[in-house]
């Protein structure tokens, strides 16, 4: 007997009888028996296991949010209690993809509202209902660009999240799509000369960050002005910053993607977060991923369904726009509840407070003789020079309950003695001052 398996001995016998076999063994006709036992322990009860797992979890160290100065793609923001409270409703959590729309209106409406809000943030016309993460969202954006203009070279700002570039290469190389990186200027923005030089007739798309990985805000207007027609302009953005920044659509972005973790999702050691994916209506049939649309029932009542499924793998198979099937719908719900809770003012306040905190930290560091590496305008992340010992110092900081600015060498081996600092609305003047004592 097991608490997750209902069968009593009596029932097992009744069922075997009904099937017309003598034993469970008879159900495995032609199935080789190759194992007797797995080489791990038998099952454990909740009480015992809980103790074990809590002990294991304590080998991780968590930091007070105000003492965390690391971002680099994953952010510690305040998450209102109701976000997790509501998203943990098991009627959301234990539902599958809304194949039966009539009993999935909860899922469908929540995702439709999510799509609407992502469109509002980015200014774009269509959002899908999620991708796995920011990196795969970008990779899929590149594949989509190639589908649109049938060219095979993608130019990527080297100043976007390096993990995104790595993942994009994994996705693009097998399809013979070439990814070329564009260097950055002293301002930390994309090098327009390098970009112009590399653009050619086979250039499908150009990718920039907004803000980029170094927290610098690229001038999308200027970049767009330098792009020949037909080139797909892909912007990788950080959604909270869009409360403060003009939406990419204004500057002619064709596809805006990014990581949505900062919208109400805990860091989770890197996953799950969520990839968001937005574009223009004219491209929608080239778009990967599920889309929820509004419709009516036979009595004229408003409702929601999955739409444009003919793009998808379960119908189109090898000709689908993507292989994505399960996505990150539940995380879209987190995003939606977070955005509904913060509203336009709250989101802007988060962005502004993060801005102020980062600029305060930057000012104080400069006062102490540390230099910012890039001169471009930044929002809540910035790179600054550190000395050789900082790599070790960073570990020491962790012992002192600070998750300090990350040494960039871990990410870009060529960027020695540079650290990337991040502030959000939860860092206080006191915690920043305390951090500064270590510099």
């Amino acid at each position: 007997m097991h608490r997750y398996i209902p069968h009593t001995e009596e029932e097992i016998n009744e069922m075997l009888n009904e099937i017309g076999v003598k034993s469970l063994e008879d159900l495995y006709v032609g199935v080789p028996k190759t194992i007797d036992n797995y080489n791990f322990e038998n099952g454990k009860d909740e009480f015992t296991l809980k103790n074990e797992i809590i002990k294991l979890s304590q080998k991780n160290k968590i930091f007070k949010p105000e003492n965390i100065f690391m971002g680099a793609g994953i952010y510690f923001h305040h998450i209102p209690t109701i976000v997790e409270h509501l998203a943990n409703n098991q009627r959301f959590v234990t539902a599958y993809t809304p194949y039966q729309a009539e009993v999935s209106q909860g899922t469908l409406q929540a995702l439709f509202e999510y799509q609407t809000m992502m469109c509002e943030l980015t200014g774009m016309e269509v959002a899908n209902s999620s991708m796995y993460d920011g990196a795969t969202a970008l990779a899929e954006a590149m594949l989509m660009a190639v589908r649109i203009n049938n060219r095979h070279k993608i130019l990527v700002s080297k100043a976007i999240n390096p993990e995104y570039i790595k993942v994009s290469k994994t996705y693009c190389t097998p399809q013979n799509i070439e990814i070329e990186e564009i260097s950055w200027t002293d301002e930390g923005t994309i090098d327009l000369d390098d970009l112009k030089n590399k653009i050619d007739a086979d250039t499908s798309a150009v990718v920039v960050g907004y803000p980029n990985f170094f927290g610098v805000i690229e001038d999308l207007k200027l970049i767009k002005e330098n792009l020949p027609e037909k080139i797909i302009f892909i912007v990788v953005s950080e959604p909270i910053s869009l409360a403060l920044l003009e939406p990419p659509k204004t500057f002619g972005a064709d596809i805006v993607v990014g990581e949505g973790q900062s919208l109400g999702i805990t860091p989770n050691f890197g996953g799950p977060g969520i990839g968001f994916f937005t574009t223009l209506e004219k491209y929608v049939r080239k778009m990967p991923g599920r889309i929820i649309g509004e419709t009516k029932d036979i009595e004229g009542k408003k409702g929601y369904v999955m739409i444009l499924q003919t793009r998808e793998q379960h119908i189109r198979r090898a000709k689908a726009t993507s292989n994505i099937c399960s996505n990150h719908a539940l995380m879209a719900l987190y995003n939606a509840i977070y955005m509904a809770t913060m509203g336009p003012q709250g989101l802007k306040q988060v962005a502004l407070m993060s801005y102020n905190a980062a600029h305060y930290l930057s000012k104080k560091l400069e006062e102490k003789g540390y230099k910012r590496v890039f001169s471009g305008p930044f929002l809540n992340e910035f790179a600054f020079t550190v000395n050789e010992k900082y790599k070790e110092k960073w570990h020491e900081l962790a012992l002192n309950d600070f998750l300090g600015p990350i040494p960039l060498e871990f990410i870009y081996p060529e960027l020695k003695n540079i650290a990337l600092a991040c502030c959000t609305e939860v860092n206080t003047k006191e915690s920043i001052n305390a951090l500064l004592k270590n510099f």
Partner: protein
Amino acid sequence: MTLFELSKSGRIGYELPNNNIEDFEIEIPEHLLRKKPPKLPELNEVDIVRHYTNLASKNYSVDVDFYPLGSCTMKYNPKFNEKMASIDNFTLIHPYQPVETVQGSLSLMYELKNMLCEITGMDDMTLQPAAGAHGELTGILIAKAYHLSKGDTKRIKAIVPDSAHGTNPASARMAGFEVVEIKSGPDGRVDLNELEKALGDDVAVLMLTNPNTLGLFEKDIDKITEMVHKAGALLYYDGANLNALLGRTRPGDMGFDIVHLNLHKTFSTPHGMGGPGSGPVGVKKHLAKFLPIPEIIKDGDVFKLNYNKPDSIGMVRSFYGNFSVMVRAYVYIKTMGNDGLKKVGHMAVLNANYLRKKVEKIMPIAYPDICMHEFVSTCENLTKETGVKALDIAKRLLDYGVHAPTMYFPLIVHEDFMIEPTETESKDTLDNFAEILKKIFEEARQNPDLVKNAPYNTPVRRLDDVTASRKPIFKFNFKGDK
């Protein structure tokens, strides 16, 4: 009502801490500063709570009742797993924290990987992929890398049976392969002749689901393995249906080179309305070097991340995968253990066969054979007789409070239902489902319109998805927008 209609200008649902920091001048060029705020809703906390509480009530889920969605393994999602996954020391961890501060997470992943290797009979594994399809892509890229590493550039094809899930051909295509679909034999399994014909020195991989999507075990698996390997190709295992084989056999033992798993199927992590899942990929020793970076290694007592794998296919997503999903699967495996997992497989198969016997009395089973974890039945006769289609029956099932099975898949059966009860359902539940099905068939014969116009008792009646795709509405239409 949508959030947007509930919104009232000036209302708030948040309050932020005071960071005591003065306002800095905004040094961002004017043209890059947002002019019009996004039209996010403005709501009070209670509005949001009620909105989502009421939306949740409109959702069917495993916690409500039976969810026999074939190929999806909608088993019970233990709440204990949820609780463990929500421990702060797991959720509030940044992926770039100093490695000495994340030993708990790394240790869990390392142990999970080893247990999954044991369960699949593989030698090494990555936990990075975020879902089954993502695992497929990863696995197929590994196959590609393998051939290329041997300088074999002519293997441009991937073979996929026509019963395969759509993600299989789609993933193979994304990996740059030409997809060759082979017809299933009359017994619903791989036709060895068809396979023979398709195989050649241009074939990189055969993607197989075993038991396949008809719930049938590929009895000739040894022969298939031999043929594929002889042709120099690799054998890929779509693990969506692994539940059936727990405690009996392992893809590795059958000769598969690459396996992907769905932690959100076999290992009880909830589907979350369609994700997040987790799609680990296991490989045999000779393919280990191609696995994505980083790999988790154990160095003495210390766990580390190793990025130095020159032959790796690279990263398939950022960081290390869906860690919170892994925690759930880890807790599940620990809860079930060796004895429990064996039971899972046996009871899943027992349930499917029992329900098959019951459904057989109502409509034909597409391939009437002893099945594994699921089976496919068809109402084609009824459709011819009454005009009532599988879709109509599905909708009518909703009226009776159970979820509809998977329909219209695999593509090789018409007007079909793919029914997978899983091991967590009781005999009573299965009996009840068969009763309902029987009743609906009677209704269809006596009053086909009743069934064709179903559902009636659901939050909305049948929805028009044709118009929805023809004249798509992608987002809320704010008044004043054009």
